[in-house]
């Protein structure tokens, strides 16, 4: 499987198609769309952290889900970004160039907020070290 991605190309906020077949040289089916959310330097490792995008429904229902409308970043249908399904994948599984990029600052903020929320980073918890004795 060849990828036309280059490391010079910014990937953060790109919507990419990911080949999810068991082996990388098997190109039939198993393509899913995902939003790249990792910070740019990480991609030098050959990996990227992504949130899968579901087109099976259009409305966020649970915390960590963000709506993405048709027409945004190459979406052909309304969908939902599943920030609670965050995972790191090999860039070797990315097929072709990105379908598009999320450029809307409000949508980027919503994804950042959902990720921070899901990881418990938005409100520092006492048990997470926010409790620092002076």
């Amino acid at each position, binding site marked *: 499987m060849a990828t036309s991605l280059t490391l010079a190309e910014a990937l953060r906020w790109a919507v990419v198609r990911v080949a*999810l077949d068991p*082996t990388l040289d098997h190109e039939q089916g198993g393509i899913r769309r995902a939003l790249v959310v990792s910070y740019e330097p990480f991609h030098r490792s050959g990996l990227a952290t992504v949130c899968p995008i579901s087109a099976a429904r259009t409305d966020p229902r*649970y*915390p960590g889900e963000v709506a993405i409308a048709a027409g945004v970043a190459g979406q052909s249908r309304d969908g939902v970004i599943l920030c609670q*399904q965050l995972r790191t994948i090999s860039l070797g599984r990315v097929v072709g160039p990105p379908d598009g990029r999320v450029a809307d600052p409000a949508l980027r903020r919503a994804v950042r907020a959902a990720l921070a929320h899901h990881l418990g980073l938005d*409100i520092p918890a*006492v048990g997470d070290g*926010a409790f620092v004795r002076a």
Partner: protein
Amino acid sequence: MRTKRTYNLPERTVRTVRELAAGYGVAATQDAVIELAVDELARRLREDDEAARWAEAAADPAFGAESTGVEEAFAAADLETWPRA
């Protein structure tokens, strides 16, 4: 940005804030003690609320099918970035 506000608090609460800052060293200042306490309350309330929503999700067949679908789809890809010991 920080904003100055005035709240009417019982003496007991004021004393506790002072003790938490000075006596227990919970935070460097009394302002920081208040900030920490309010954050913790907000987080606990939100987590209580969302625990109920996630429990609903666990019983939602559509959510279960979606989660299983994502897990199965990413199974091979996940193995590549989660090496076996």
